[in-house]
């Protein structure tokens, strides 16, 4: 693995929300082609990491660096991080009433194309790809003209996040509890979507509470978060162990 190219490198990171320092001296390196799972009890800083990466205005970086594709990520505004290929799958996807899913997605793709100095996507190519990927995610065509996440069920919102990810083809996907609130069928569909994205040139960070999702997405590395830092890393078997024993045996150490 050491011969692989580094996609993301987090060094000595401190991040706070409001006055509260949440992430403390975090170090994490992710290579191209890797999937990392992040597990850990509530309040351990998993979602704050996602916010720090995406550049959420509530999250302040007080120390350390993040490099993404060798770019100093912290100097980039939110939309440029996205256009460089960083995707955040939201734990609670936001509703934008009246703005149709397809219009929204097309605007996002064209923003990315513009950033990369490419032409706008052709309407027919876009629709064709959107329909195909919506099918794959079990999303009814009628959803595509509905408002973004407007009146969707929890499961529908999460599948829609993955659909957006498939359309935007990010280099790094950060999926924040994408599996929470999913029934077993939705979980399978969502994992299928995530797996279809994984390849030599893409990586993902999967934040989850449950080992179940990881049965479908075999992560290369599993990290356990506690008090804003990684307290243990291992392979998939670590997730199995956590499922059986809970976190206490680690956090009490």
């Amino acid at each position, binding site marked *: 693995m050491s011969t692989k190219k580094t996609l993301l490198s987090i060094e000595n990171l401190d991040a706070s929300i409001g006055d509260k320092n949440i992430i403390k001296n975090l170090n994490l390196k992710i290579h191209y082609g890797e999937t990392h799972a992040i597990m850990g009890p509530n309040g351990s800083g998993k979602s704050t990491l996602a916010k720090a990466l*995406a550049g959420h205005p509530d999250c302040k970086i007080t120390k350390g660096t993040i490099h993404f594709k060798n770019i100093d990520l912290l100097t980039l505004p939110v939309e440029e991080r996205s256009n460089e290929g960083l995707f955040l799958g939201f734990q609670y996807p*936001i509703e934008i009433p*009246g703005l149709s899913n397809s219009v929204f997605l097309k605007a996002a793709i064209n*923003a990315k194309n513009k950033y990369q100095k490419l032409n706008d996507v052709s309407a027919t190519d876009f629709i064709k790809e959107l329909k195909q990927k919506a099918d794959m995610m079990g999303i009814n065509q009628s959803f595509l003209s509905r408002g973004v996440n407007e009146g969707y069920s929890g499961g529908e919102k999460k599948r829609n996040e993955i659909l957006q990810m498939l359309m935007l083809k990010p280099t790094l996907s950060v999926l924040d509890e994408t599996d929470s609130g999913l029934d077993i069928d939705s979980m399978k569909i969502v994992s299928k979507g995530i797996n279809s994205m994984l390849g030599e040139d893409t990586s993902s960070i999967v934040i989850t509470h449950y080992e179940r999702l990881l049965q479908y997405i075999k992560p290369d590395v599993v990290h356990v978060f506690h008090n804003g830092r990684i307290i243990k890393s291992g392979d998939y078997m670590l997730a199995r162990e956590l499922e059986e024993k809970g976190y206490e045996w680690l956090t009490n150490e």
Partner: protein
Amino acid sequence: MDPDNNQVSNPEIDNLIEKSYEYGFTTDIESETIAPGLNEDVIRLISKKKGEPQFLLDWRLKAFRHWSKLKEPEWGQLNIEKINYQAISYFSAPKLENAPKSLDEVDPKLLETYDKLGIPLHERAKLAGVAVDAVFDSVSVATTFKKKLLEAGVIFSSFSEAVKDHPELIKKYLGKVVPYRDNYFAALNAAVFTDGSFVYIPKGVRCPMELSTYFRINEANTGQFERTLIVADEGSHVSYLEGCTAPMRDENQLHAAVVELVALDDAEIKYSTVQNWYPGDENGKGGIYNFVTKRGDCRGNNSKISWTQIETGSSVTWKYPSCLLRGDNSIGEFYSIALSNHHQQADTGTKMIHLGKNTKSKIISKGISAKKAQNTYRGLVTIAKNADHSRNYTQCDSLLIGDKCGAHTFPSIGVNNSSSILEHEATTSKISDDQLFYCMQRGINEEDAIGLIISGFCKEVLNELPMEFAVEARALLQVNLEGAVG
């Protein structure tokens, strides 16, 4: 909390808001203007200059005498400087000895102005299949597609021409929907109106194209008093659009138009407005006062009148496009987007008066306010005693951008018939930081994100616009309403 310390500010967004009015220019054309002031002699002079028949002069004078007895209304949720009616010049005409017969005869400078406004008559009008009766100040100077319309039997001309060519129609319908006694500004308009548009669609005719008029106020201190009359005879159908821009001015310019629509049995009129007059500078200085009386008379059974308005300009907007649902089974609709920024004030809404049986009305109002703007929806729905099984649906949504603006809603409902059903829904929301972050995480910059969120908010109304104008309206909203988010 002190709002001054709580204002969320974003330099980029502020920049966009500060964008100066794109269409702020004047055309240097010699105008023939009557000296400021208003009295019976001025009215006689206007009528004479326009070569009007006696009945029209008599009507103007009656209106003026009535107006002289009236007091300016003050019930609007508006803060307006006192208007000095004697300081306004009531007539301004581009100096043209004879009206041009075709575009070739039109003063090239006028055409240049249209170009700046994005209305190249000879090209775009043709491409879009739109006939444009362009009102430049007070006199119509060019009418296109007249021939094609005439073949269909449609009359589409300036009001002045119609007075000459079809006096019987003018006499029959003028002031029947909005009588000069209706209100202060309707009386003023009746006394001094200089021009406008006239449309007549004969029985059973579906107007072959969208009809469109671009209004433009050009002469400083010239109040603009348009009058529009549209008559849709039995079983006919017409879609009409007015769009406006105005040059930059220091002083407030008064605009008090009157629009009357008449739909006979089985007729349908769709009237769309895109209003983008100069709103004043960021301190609220200058800008147009837009006090308009618009009313549609669904006189015939099964008739339908639909108002759609995108109000983004003017320093003060005061208008209530309304429907009188007199015919049985008649339908009235009102779709509105009112956007106010900086110090703009909008007090707008509609009246739906249900008189016939099984009449239906639908009101969709979207108010958007940013900076220190105030936006008021005022609506009246009345169901008369004999209007059995009538229905009204009202949806009234307000969107606030920043924390110094205001949204106000004054719905009035009067029901005198127990078999009728009314529904009223209202929401107030803000563009949330979460929505913006979500869009930006998908790569969309803040400016475009606000545009997308707003277009989503306004979807039901934008969908009502004729296709070719919907795109323009979206762009207009985006330019006008990027705002600080809080």
